[in-house]
């Protein structure tokens, strides 16, 4: 009680306040420049950029930039690609990660368990540039392992120009994505699997439940909250794609844009290669706004399901 009364009368300690704000200043400045100024700068999507006048003085032009974007036709392809790839990655990624986590948990030898986990997580720590080198080592038309070793093994002499042919890329990109991310997602689910009380399994064993039954009736139901949370979070990010995956792995090859271009690679190419700020900023604007709405919705849903997993 005494402490409460004291708090009510506490006056502001200016010396401490100033010290604390000095400490917070570098971080606050960073967010101002790295995040808040670009947020304000999102108005470029509605301006006709004139470098002589500068960004902030360029005249507003209404929805002209968006008209250009939608007339260009690529907008539907890139939105379709972004969303479809995300759906495939979310579904396959989740299934694979859970299966791997459950299996790894069955490996009781501590050292081996560590070794497997370490190896499976390794691709996650590599940059997409390196990943694209690895993919190229297999797919290259001239030196690639598939064209030089695997295909001749089956008596096929014609080389496949992977980087020119669209039909292979949905599979290649999905494979690379799973290869790189399975370790990461496995670690997350493994933490949840390890967290399940052994008492459940003990009781199930006494009742004579098979391993399969234990997995389907104990492990998976107890993972559902984690699955739902991660699922909703990824749906919240469905308008964003891994720029590195879609830019580096197909080596930005124009012949296969139809199946590799996502919103992020479009924004990059329009800005840096075509110097087309108007289309680039319009596409970026749509991504930011729709992305924000989706994240907020996702968070709202998580809040309803399990409060402690919500961001706020």
């Amino acid at each position, binding site marked *: 009680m005494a402490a409460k009364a004291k708090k009510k009368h506490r006056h*502001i300690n200016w010396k*401490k306040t100033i010290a*604390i704000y000095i*400490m*917070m200043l*570098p*971080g*606050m400045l*960073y967010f101002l420049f*790295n*995040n*808040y*100024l*670009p*947020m*304000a*700068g999102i108005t470029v999507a509605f301006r006709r950029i004139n470098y002589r006048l500068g*960004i902030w003085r360029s005249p507003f032009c209404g929805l002209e930039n968006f008209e250009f974007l939608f007339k260009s036709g690529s907008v539907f392809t890139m939105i379709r690609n972004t969303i479809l790839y995300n759906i495939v990655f979310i579904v396959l990624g989740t299934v694979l990660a859970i299966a*791997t986590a459950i299996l790894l948990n*069955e490996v*009781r030898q501590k050292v*081996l368990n*560590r070794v*497997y*986990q370490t190896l*499976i*997580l*390794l*691709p996650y*720590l*590599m940059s997409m*540039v390196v990943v694209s*080198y*690895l993919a190229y*080592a297999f797919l290259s038309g*001239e*030196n*690639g*392992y598939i064209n*030089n*070793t695997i295909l001749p093994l089956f008596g096929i002499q014609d080389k496949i120009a992977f980087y020119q042919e669209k039909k292979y890329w949905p599979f290649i990109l999905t494979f690379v994505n799973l*290869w790189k991310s*399975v370790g990461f997602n496995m*670690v997350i689910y493994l933490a949840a699997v390890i967290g399940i009380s052994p008492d459940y399994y003990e009781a199930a*064993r006494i009742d004579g439940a*098979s391993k399969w039954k234990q997995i389907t009736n104990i492990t998976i139901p107890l993972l559902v909250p984690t699955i739902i*949370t*991660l699922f909703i*979070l990824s749906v919240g990010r469905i308008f964003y794609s891994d720029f*590195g995956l879609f830019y*580096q792995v197909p080596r930005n090859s124009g012949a296969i844009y139809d199946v590799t271009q996502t919103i992020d690679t479009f*924004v990059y190419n329009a*800005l840096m290669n075509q110097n087309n*700020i108007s289309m*680039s*900023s319009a596409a*970026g604007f749509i991504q930011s706004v729709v992305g924000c709405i989706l*994240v907020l919705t996702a968070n709202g849903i998580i809040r309803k399901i399990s409060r402690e997993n919500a*961001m*706020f």
Partner: protein
Amino acid sequence: MTIATREEKVVSALAHIIMILFSAMAVIPFWLLIAASFSSETYATKYGYKFLPQELSLSAYEYLFKQGGQIGMAYLITVIVTVIGTTVGILAISLLAYGLVQKDIPGVKVVFILILVTMLFNGGLVPQYLIYTNTLHVKNTLFGLILPNLLMSGFTVILVKNYFQSNIPGEMLEAAEIDGAGQFNIFFRLVFPLSTPILATVGLMAAVSYWNDWTNGLYYITDHNLYSLQQLLNEMNNNIQYLANNASNLGGADISNLPSVTIRLAIAVVAIVPIMVIYPFFQKYFAKGITMGSVKG
């Protein structure tokens, strides 16, 4: 202890088989890359990459060490950027997080909400690019590699703040204040040392992000002397002729002998070796960093 039933043995064997398979799949591409980098240039161009180095040759690596002036430079840049970015980032993140746990300071809640907003909404690439190039003029400076996006994120600040809240007793801080210790003293003498587990994890993740980053270079660096390792690799990926065109940077060597295929692989190997070497020792921290960040990522 119960004796393993037949079913348990089967499941365990199955788990091992699939885990070995997955581990192999994770590692095999790296093996191909490394093996090919030790093959001779003529073999690699004629017959492609193989899992066993063919016509074992160190010529690509010899090139790197003898004439790789630009590669050495890129390595240096990468190390500098990683060290500065991680150190400054950790300091700024923890100082800001320390401020956020002060309940008696006016305005702290507003700062917290402003940080949350950065996690929900961002201006996107175009405005950020324009701000960094036209307002802050980071193009072709080390700042261009250190500042954009990587230095700190709202997410890590909140992660560290939560750690402070649940692991550093408020009474301890109050006692230190009553003893007349200044805030900087309290932070550096008490809070910082008590938070090494979280700061090590966050720092490790940050260091890997800096080491692996190529996007900042892609946007903000055109000066070859400021290329990071990853950007150099990226440049060579886009332009196989890059090395030949820039042979003068490699010491003006005879271009016809340039092992342009294997040298690219050798540079990739040199770029991934540091991570491969340190990673097994820090694997626990990585796993911890991932689980901490997962659900609230």
